[in-house]
């Protein structure tokens, strides 16, 4: 493919008398003012070599409710920064808050003191002061930036950053939109943490009740139902625990607009529209689809990937995907971003003309965690949620995967150790080995009191779409689909492997690595400068987490051979082990953490140090 970029900016910039709208809704960025007039345009791009940003409190409205947001240059999301690969950029960030603040450039390769993590990269930006970030722009793609101070990210300090490539863009498109998903709350992240520490299911209003119990009795029979309920009660866990914070506290926004306000992007039928999806949602995984349109994923975390056509993809906190859609009909399409726990959704519209909208799909029923999410040994063949519904069963017990599906309930896949189904086998020609394809027994270490349980074993689940997906016939993006467009230079095999366990105590709302929160493990994780290493994340919890490494790429070891995709944020499913290869080419101290803001803030955080000398043990 060759680039065209038919003057896409001039095409879209002309529309809309932005100035007249300023007084109307000054809090919203211009792509939202556009919506107020039902005209969709590109956000105003701040570009150039010197960019000024101001962090301050600003009144904010969500569905006629008043709140105070913390904003960058007065809007939520903040202004889109558009840079050119190869330029040097100076970003002057002034803090007008009463507390310290910061901006982290998410996914950007830069010097460590420009990375914007208070306590790791610098001291933070004190009230009334300006910090000058300066770095050469050495990459291209869709990124974003956000505060790394306390709960400011949830309160509105986030915005897109797009870097145009030096080389012609291999992705062809006529029109583009940033689709930034976020979770807005009228309470602060700190208030949420306080509540969860006191009652860990505080926000979950989708728990199993007496009514559901009776329904299960009727549908599954007495023995299966009692076994299931008692098993969960015995473990002191809740199968409806799909997210710590739900729509009870969040309104899910698309480009800063609620579902009712309906952000709209315009297109002319036949155009190729590039949608740059960015998940800001600090505690929210969302499943994105556009009923009626196939989406071709062309970029993941700012890095071009071989195009893959899907119906739906899951976007974890801090991940980004760029997709191309080609609406040919003269009608509106709904962009539907349902939360993983199905408690809410964000919604917007693609339409040929302003004011149009398409029907908004029903949310699917919330799935349930299974024993597989607990990493239970399947040798005993303990079937959680197993249905007696014969017509939906497809069991291939003899050496093959077992898949039990029911339209109403999440499918349960029980992989028998060491076995793959035929499809996977044939696809594995020209693919590299996926670390963890064979389940790995958990060691004797239970990670202490800060960790509630350990799974019997963990394994790669990269080929699974994730809980609540993949059972309704939609083609859902999985991590094994991601292949870089071109091989990256460093093709060395990892010289050594580090293993990190994702741990937590959900009952007490504690999150940690290897059972230790950051304040109990301030000693950095050491990478030898220049080495190629494998870092394996072992999720001992039954929740999804997104691992974010600052300063360096993580090459997802998903079996793509020399086409391993690069990610800045990697989603790790319950009881999963995921390996990434890292080229430790960025000397200095870097943050590494779960990008679920509340998890990070209670201690799921480490410092990674890239240096020459192995620290004294």
């Amino acid at each position: 493919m060759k680039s065209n970029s038919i003057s896409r900016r001039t095409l879209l910039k002309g529309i809309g008398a932005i100035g007249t709208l300023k007084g109307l809704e000054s809090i919203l960025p211009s792509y939202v003012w556009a919506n107020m007039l039902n005209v969709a345009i590109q956000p105003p791009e701040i570009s150039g070599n010197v960019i000024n940003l101001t962090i301050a409190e600003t009144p904010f409205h969500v569905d006629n409710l008043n709140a105070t947001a913390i904003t960058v240059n007065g809007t939520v999301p903040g202004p889109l920064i558009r840079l050119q690969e190869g330029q040097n950029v100076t970003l002057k960030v002034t803090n007008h808050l009463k507390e310290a603040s910061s901006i982290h450039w998410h996914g950007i390769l830069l010097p460590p003191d420009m990375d914007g993590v208070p306590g790791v990269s610098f001291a933070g930006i004190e009230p009334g002061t300006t910090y000058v970030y300066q770095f050469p722009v050495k990459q291209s793609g869709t990124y974003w930036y956000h505060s790394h101070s306390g709960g400011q990210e949830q309160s509105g300090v986030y915005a897109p950053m797009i870097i145009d490539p030096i080389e012609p863009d291999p992705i062809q498109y006529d029109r583009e939109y940033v689709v930034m998903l976020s979770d807005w709350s009228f309470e602060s992240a700190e208030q949420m943490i306080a509540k969860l520490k006191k009652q860990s299911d505080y926000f979950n209003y989708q728990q199993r009740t007496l009514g559901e119990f009776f329904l299960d009795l009727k549908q599954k029979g007495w023995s299966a139902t009692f076994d299931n309920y008692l098993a969960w009660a015995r473990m002191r866990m809740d199968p409806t625990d799909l997210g710590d914070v739900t729509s009870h506290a969040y309104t899910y926004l698309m480009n800063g607009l609620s579902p009712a306000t309906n952000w709209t992007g315009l297109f002319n039928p036949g155009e190729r529209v590039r949608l740059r999806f960015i998940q800001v949602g600090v505690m929210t995984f969302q499943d994105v689809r556009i009923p009626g349109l196939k989406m071709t994923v062309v970029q993941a975390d700012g890095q071009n990937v071989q195009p893959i056509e899907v119906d739906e993809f899951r976007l974890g906190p801090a991940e980004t995907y760029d997709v191309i859609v080609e609406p040919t009909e003269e009608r509106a399409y709904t962009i539907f971003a349902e939360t993983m726990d199905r408690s809410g959704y964000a919604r917007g519209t693609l339409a040929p003309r302003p004011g149009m909208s398409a029907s908004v799909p029903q949310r699917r029923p919330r799935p349930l965690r299974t024993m597989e999410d607990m990493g239970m040994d399947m040798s005993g063949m303990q079937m959680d949620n197993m249905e007696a519904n014969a017509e939906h069963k497809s069991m291939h017990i003899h050496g093959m995967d077992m898949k039990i599906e029911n339209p109403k309930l999440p499918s349960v896949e029980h992989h028998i150790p060491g076995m793959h189904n035929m499809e996977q086998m044939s696809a594995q020609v020209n693919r590299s080995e996926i670390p963890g394809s064979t389940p790995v027994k958990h060691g004797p270490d239970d990670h202490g009191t800060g960790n509630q349980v350990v799974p019997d074993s963990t394994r790669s689940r990269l080929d699974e779409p994730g809980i609540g997906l993949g059972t309704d016939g939609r083609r859902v993006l999985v991590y094994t689909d991601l292949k870089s467009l071109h091989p990256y230079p460093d093709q060395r095999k990892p010289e050594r492997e580090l293993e990190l366990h994702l741990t937590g105590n959900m009952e007490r709302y504690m999150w940690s690595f290897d059972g230790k929160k950051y304040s109990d493990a301030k000693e950095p994780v050491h990478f030898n400068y220049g080495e190629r290493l494998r870092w394996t994340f072992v999720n001992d919890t039954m929740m999804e987490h997104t691992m974010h490494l600052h300063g360096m790429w993580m090459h997802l070891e998903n079996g793509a051979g020399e086409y391993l995709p690069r990610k800045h944020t990697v989603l790790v499913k319950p009881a999963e082990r995921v390996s990434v290869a890292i080229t430790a080419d960025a000397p200095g101290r870097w943050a590494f953490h779960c990008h679920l803001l509340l998890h990070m803030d209670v201690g799921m955080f480490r410092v990674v140090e890239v240096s020459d000398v192995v620290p004294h043990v």
Partner: protein
Amino acid sequence: MRTFAQALSGIVLVIPLSTGFCVPGVSAPSTTVFLPTPGAYFLTASTTQDNSDGQRLAPNNLSPPKDWPSPVADEHPNLFILADVLEYRQNNKDSDFRWDVQGWYGGDYNRLWFKSEGERNTALKADYDIDAQLLYGRFIKQYYDFQIGVRGETQIFRGKNVTRAHAVIGFQGLVPYNHEVDFALFISQHGDVSARFVGSRDFLLTQRLILQPRFETNAAIQKVEKFSTGRGLNNIELGLRLRYEIRREIAPYIGVSYDKSFFGTADRVRQEGGNTSQIRFVAGIRLWL
């Protein structure tokens, strides 16, 4: 209620901010240039060291200045106060009431606990029975707090007031099958040993309508007449409360409470002219902040 809770959570938040986040000085604009050549380190602090002996910079040279804040606030203490029972109890001539309040202040592992139980129980003739504990709690074994501390107990009966102090060793947490349990052993200043066990479980009828069976029992090794305590099992109290969570923190409830005294304790209650067994309807509010 909400503003009170907010005010309190505000207090909690302020404390660590004043200790952990005092970042002195102004972050000076940095204009350093990144040179990604091997061995060239990027130091924000001015601690560059000589590496003439071929030894490259030791990792601790990369350590951040001491005055930088913590990147995360994982040592934030919290304050929790729960009135699990706070209720009026129906009685023919007098109005009885009862409370069971507890809470903690602290972090994940170390907490300062306070607990208070009390009642006005005209049938038992000890008009008021009030109990307060102050405990240190250590988080152990994934689900439990091991507690140690002191307890003061006072009973008021026809204007007479008796008081004693105890040492407390307790154990509290969530046992398998989701039962909240609270067990404590008390040794009074006179060496009398007694124990208390409380267990409860929540059943969700709907997302907000919750049924809570609750069981409490007291036992003693020695007979202590002054406190109407016999040897062995003293009493049991069974409660069934149906609450509606207007929000998680505020839940009015109705219910029924059955209590019965046994053995020496029952004898003592009879001597005083009380009822050794009673069923009462209750109405109250469960609160936490």
